């Protein structure tokens, strides 16, 4: 299976720059992508150590003609080895845990922060998820369905709620998910940095046509956004 594993890793890296989650177009998505790379790096280290030991032990101690009837010497355990593979993983996890907690606090306070916590300059978009479409309401009362229009370089804060079951709001290029719950309001905020079209999806299974509950996110220039807002 290792024969298959590496080609995939290579393909993954080659196409990595195209993968939406690893191709961040907002501040929030940036943080997440960095975390993903960090955790991936640390974990590859672990993976390589295990794989090397695995292959080495297997080749060296595989039964041969000469060893067919050998009874290997008894060994119970080795305190220092046990300590090594207890302490080193703890250290690695500690290295990972610090940025994890930091990012979790940074992003989550943005996500579920109170009204006072929201930035003054943030544009607010109300999001209502319902089987099986998305309704976006902008600050001037303008509404759009399944199409989210955002100005570039502008902090936007979403206030999300659901009319029926649980949905989850996800624009892989721009941010992670936040669940959209009935009878409750959740929040999410990010600042898109590049104009373009980005896919948005419902990520929580919500019924028959969950698959079709998608939306298009268009990040456009500030001027274009202003004029779009004025349109009827």
């Amino acid at each position, binding site marked *: 299976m290792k024969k298959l594993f590496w080609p995939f890793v290579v393909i993954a890296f080659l196409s990595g720059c195209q993968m939406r989650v690893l191709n961040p177009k907002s501040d929030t998505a940036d943080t997440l992508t960095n975390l993903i790379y960090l955790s991936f790096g640390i974990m590859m280290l672990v993976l390589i150590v295990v794989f090397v030991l695995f292959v080495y032990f297997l080749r060296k101690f595989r039964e041969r003609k000469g060893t067919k009837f050998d009874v290997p010497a008894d060994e119970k355990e080795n305190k220092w080895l046990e300590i090594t593979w207890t302490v080193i993983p703890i250290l690695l996890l500690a290295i*990972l845990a610090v940025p994890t907690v930091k990012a979790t606090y940074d992003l989550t306070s943005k996500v579920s922060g109170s009204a006072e916590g929201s930035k003054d300059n943030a544009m607010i978009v109300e999001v209502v998820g319902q089987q099986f479409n998305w309704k976006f309401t902008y600050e001037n009362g303008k509404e759009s369905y399944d199409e989210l229009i955002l100005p570039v370089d502008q902090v936007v804060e979403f206030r999300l709620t659901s009319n029926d079951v649980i949905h989850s709001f996800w624009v892989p290029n721009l941010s992670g998910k936040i*669940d959209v719950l009935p009878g409750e309001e959740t929040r999410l905020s990010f600042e898109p940095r590049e104009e373009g079209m980005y896919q948005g999806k419902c990520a*929580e299974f919500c019924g028959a046509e969950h698959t079709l509950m998608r939306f298009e996110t268009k990040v456009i220039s500030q001027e274009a956004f202003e004029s779009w807002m004025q349109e009827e």
Partner: protein
Amino acid sequence: MNGMNVPFVGQVPSDIVVAWIVSILLGIALMWWMTTRKKWPLIWEYITTTDNRKIGTMYILLSMVFFIRGGIDAMFIRTQLAIPENDFWVFQSQKYNEVFTTHGTVMIFFVSMPLLIGLMNIAVPLQLGANDLAFPYLNSISFWLFVSGGVIFNMAFFFNAAPNAGWTSYAPLATDTFTTGPNNNYYIFGLQVSGLGTIFTAINMIVTIIRLRAPGMKMTRMPLFSWATLVTSFLILIAFPVLTVALLLLMFDRIYGTSFFLGEYGDPVYWQHLFWIFGHPEVYILILPAFGIFSDVISTFSRKRVYGYTSMVIAIALIGLLGFMVWAHHMFTVGLGALANSIFAITTMLIAVPTGIKVFNWLFTMRKGVVRITTPMLFSLGFIPTFVIGGVTGVMLAVAAADYQYHDSYFVVAHFHYTMIGGTILGAFAGIYYWYPKMTGKMLDEKLGKWHFWLFIIGFHLTFMPQHFAGLNGMPRRVYTYTWEDGVFLLNFVSTIGAFLMGASMLFVAWNLYKTHRLTDPVGADPWDGRTLEWTVGSPAPEHPFQTIPKINSIDAYWYSKVERKRLPKAEEPRPSPIAIQTVAPVLLAGVLIVMSVGFIYGWVWIQVMGGVAALGFFIYRVFHDERKAVYRKEEES
């Protein structure tokens, strides 16, 4: 997109019609075969048995039947997803939702769990030097409750009412406001009945392990599979009652009009808490016994005692304990707040430490040993790298903020298949090949076993490795199609090829079973040159395996007795064994519970009442037909 051009036969989707026809034909063929081969007395013997080996074998046999069902579901899923904007047969929208719901539920509750419980039944008493489980009668009830639950759950599909809210059955989608019809009632009752059986099994295992060990077999001399079974049983004991209550409340929401989990008045997130307080320990319930199997198998085929026995035991216990403190990592995107998410992220990461300890101890068990590549060993060796990949993606998922990206995407699907197949299913296969002589007295063919392994593992990685990247490219789970622009076609296509390879590998199992039983001779007590007590009794293990109970003075006592060319000493004063009987009551109870559940599922009150009365009647029957009566009377007279 679709839904109108689904092929229907009358009111019924054509896949159901096909399933009916195939099942009836297979049923007739089976009946004919059993009648001409005069198998009915044998069937009757198994139905009425309380013997742990026979019950264990039936668990495994039936799990394999459900494995075929869940596997066919998987094939439908993969075919529908093979190419973008596909319209395969009927499997779009609600039909697709039904297929992935049954695939998940069947694979977890009716394949993985019973496979492991079957192996526990067969191996644990033998490893301990016990003649049966502590409560043979209860064991039979457990098994038939599992059958009953399995029948209830699988029946749904045949009546065009397969559950459709996912195996997690999230509210409020799973309440009757959003999923009308009997579909998700089937889910509730199928799980409720089989869950009760699982709870009884856990009790049985704990009492067996605590009280029925052979003299001298201290807890610290127990094989690791028995240890894993003990910890697992405690997890079941604590986790399953929470599921029971969660299902009970969901049942009230669906049938009696309450609103525990409804968005407006109730709390949908409370369902998620209850479900995952059960659900996360559940995945450790599935993985720990597999760890135990690997420990025994790797030690046997390295011809060395397991490395770091003490830390292995501590690691099992720690994983079990931590397993209860991580449930909210399934809910990072719900908005529980930064503090909760951080705490659960860290506890989740911590689980990697004891798991890592186990991996290194397995590796060091092989070091300086003589590693024999047999089929069970091959599955164990395949497990190590596979599971470690699943483990590291687990740590990546534990990074709470990053999980905002992974959550509910194909990355998660890939991760849990790496742990569940790479751990549990490979473990179950290893265990089946390993203990097959104890079940049947024959040994599965090694060559075909290796074919099975290689096709399965290659197919497995082909299927699930690409799914990581599909997830990273923004593919959510539980979608029945995707577009060309999504850029996940190639990944999905490879995945589909892999899935069919895995399916094909199972044909080698069928061939192997046929070949083994038709063409090979029985084997002796100890075909693998084993280390633990199960290899001291005949193959297949007789109903009363230990005529004389051995006295144990070390770990792997049987192995050391072989090395020293001595016999195991006889225990002076062994405890009395549990009482085995033949009884048809448990299977009747299973039938009654099916009927009663159907009454609840469709709201037929009279059937509920009749079922309830019959179930109570079973208790009364049981009170007056206690196998202990004769034994105690004999004791009293002597």
